[in-house]
């Protein structure tokens, strides 16, 4: 009971300070919108958020992909060994599978493609694709878990592609993540597809928790 009171006092105090700080906010603070719109056409994508995410502040995204991979490695290193659901031939599930998986995959592809112009992109597509993969997992058809090599490849494909494309300009003399202005759009697309794949597989692996019990996966 005592901790509740203390906790409430502290959080109220925090709320008070935050509110005070936010109310005092001056309205004329400069913003980066104008800067973004000015450089938008050079970024190779028309959606400003994707431009910021994958071109202007692409270093953040690179590190963020690193965090994603790290979370997975951590989970596998720490998490308890998990058993995958068995192969189920329940007709209802089969129907659901056939009905939903292809459209979801198509939807994911659409989101990926539209990201350049409209809100969307690798992360949203990845999440949707993960949904499809979960369906497969539940019905015991998560075959990729059984082939460890391929599974690790798919998990790290996003990071691999992004790193190689980021390092490429350095090899060509200019600095890190400095895509050639002309092909920027294509480079971003390649990165986004790879990122989508690895995000999807990572989310599913995180859902499973620890490393799955499988015959050929040596610990």
């Amino acid at each position, binding site marked *: 009971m005592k901790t509740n009171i203390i906790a409430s006092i*502290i959080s109220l*105090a*925090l709320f008070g300070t935050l509110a005070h700080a936010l109310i005092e906010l001056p309205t004329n603070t400069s913003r980066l919108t104008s800067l973004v719109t000015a450089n938008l056409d050079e970024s190779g994508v028309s959606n400003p958020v994707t431009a910021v995410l994958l071109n202007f502040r692409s270093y953040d995204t690179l590190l963020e992909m690193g965090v994603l991979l790290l979370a997975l490695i951590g989970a596998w290193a720490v998490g308890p060994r998990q058993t995958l659901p068995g192969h189920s031939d329940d007709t209802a599930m089969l129907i659901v599978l056939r009905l939903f998986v292809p459209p979801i995959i198509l939807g994911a592809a659409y989101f990926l493609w539209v990201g350049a112009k409209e809100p969307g992109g690798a992360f949203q597509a990845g999440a949707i694709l993960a949904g499809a993969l979960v369906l497969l997992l539940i019905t015991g058809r998560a075959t990729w878990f059984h082939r460890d090599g391929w599974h690790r490849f798919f998990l790290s494909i996003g990071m691999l592609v992004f790193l190689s494309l980021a390092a490429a300009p350095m090899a060509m003399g200019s600095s890190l993540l400095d895509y050639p202005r002309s092909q920027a759009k294509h480079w971003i697309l390649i990165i986004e597809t790879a990122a989508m794949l690895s995000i999807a597989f990572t989310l599913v692996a995180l859902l499973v928790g620890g490393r799955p019990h499988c015959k050929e996966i040596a610990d």
Partner: protein
Amino acid sequence: MNDSLIRILLFAAVALPLFNALAFAIPGVRLAAWNGSALAALPALVLALIAQPGTEAFGLVVDETGRIFLGFTAALWFLSGWFTVNCMRRERHRVRFDVFFLLSMAGNFLLILARDIPTFYAGFALMGFASAGLVLHRGDSEALRAGRLYIALAVFGEVMLFVGFGHLAAGSASLRIDEVVSSSTSKAAIMMLLIGFGCKAGALSLHFWLPLAHPTAPVPASAVLSGAMIKAGIFGWIRFLPLGLVEWPDLGITLIVLGLLGALLGVAAGVTQGNPKTVLAYSSLSQIGIMMVAFGVAFLDPASWPALLSALIIYAAHHGLAKGALFLAVLPVKNCRTRWHVCLGCLGLLLPALALAGAPFSSGAVAKLALKEPIRYLPGFSAVLVGVLLPLAATGTTLLMIRYLSLAWPKQAPSNVRTSDDSLWIPWGLAVLSTLLGVWFVPGGIVDLDKVTTPAKVWASAWPVLAGIGLALSWHRLKKSFHWKTPVGLPAGDVVVLLERLVPKRIRKAIAFVPNKDPASLAPRVRVDWLRMASLAEQRVREGIWVLLAVLLLALLLSMR
């Protein structure tokens, strides 16, 4: 030629006894060194005879007073050395005795011949500590008590000297004795040196070790102790006190009073003693008292110092030789082999005793008269005081001599007791001869014969002796008629008995007070509850972390206003 000979002799005088002593350490050479202890004193003796005053070598010098002192000291060391060779042959710690004997001899010669202060002080200390070995030789409880006292006084004396020399040499750069004494004026130095040498000479209030130490030491050792080593104290006074330069009346008077008191106390205590050697020790005490009077006079009237000096030298020589002879007599005389030996022993005893008492025509008379001469012209009442009391002291000495003779009268040894072997008689005999002739043939002829032989002088030296004999006879008859037992003797070393009872309790308590325990054991082991308390505190912080962070946030915000 003889200059280089003298230089060799100078070196040999000190070096021979030293190397002899060290030789004992090497087992192989021990035997040869054995009879070396007798010959060790020879170079010094020869040096004293042939050296002209003022020759210097190896930091040593032979000056006027030095030569005479060296003469009679070397003679005494030579004779007692010879005596030791014979009498100590069967002793248990023979080697240790010889080593200490030789070391003291070396120290004694070194301090007489020293030119600068450190050498003198080195000799003095060497003699002090080595002679302690002689006193402790017998090793029984009495020797231990006497030895401890002797060492204590010796060390105290040396420390006093150390401080005295410091003050003396404060101003001057060089350390040569003559320059230093003439240049320094500090009164503190004089006091320190007086006390320092007083300890060694056995002046009153610093004398209580003397009656204990001399008797317990073996005969040759006590002969040298009483004869030569006490004189070192006197020699030190002569050398270092600015006599004839400084006029210090009240010091003079105190010295005179102390001297006379010492003389009288010596007699009073000595007469009642049972051991002949103690009697002799007390007699030395009184003789030193008389000499102190001379120093007192020197301070009163500095002009009279040269005369006093020569008187003191003669007196010291005479006393040294006589006292040596008397001490050496104790052993051979005890159980003589034949009647002829007995009468020879009587003669041998009588002559030095009379000389010591100052009988006419003896060396004692010469010395005493020489001493009285300058005192007579003193102004004021001190002259009277000295004129009357000095003869009284002489009678006292006679009384002591009679007491000594009564104790140490030579007796025919009963058939079963081993008689003292003849080899002892020769050195003793020579000692007696030297007392008789020594003073007369004092090198450099200070003494002019005619003055002594005038009838007035003869009478002046005779009446105290006669008075003494008279007193002794009357005392003897009274004792016989009233059957008095001889009154119980004052315990030897009177003052010390008192001291021993008073002081030790307090000293022992003081020493015990010093912390001897291991202080670390005091710190109680406090760690345990500290441990529990600290881990609880950590617990508190763990639970209250958010409160503390909130406080930090608040503090940051407030401080930014």
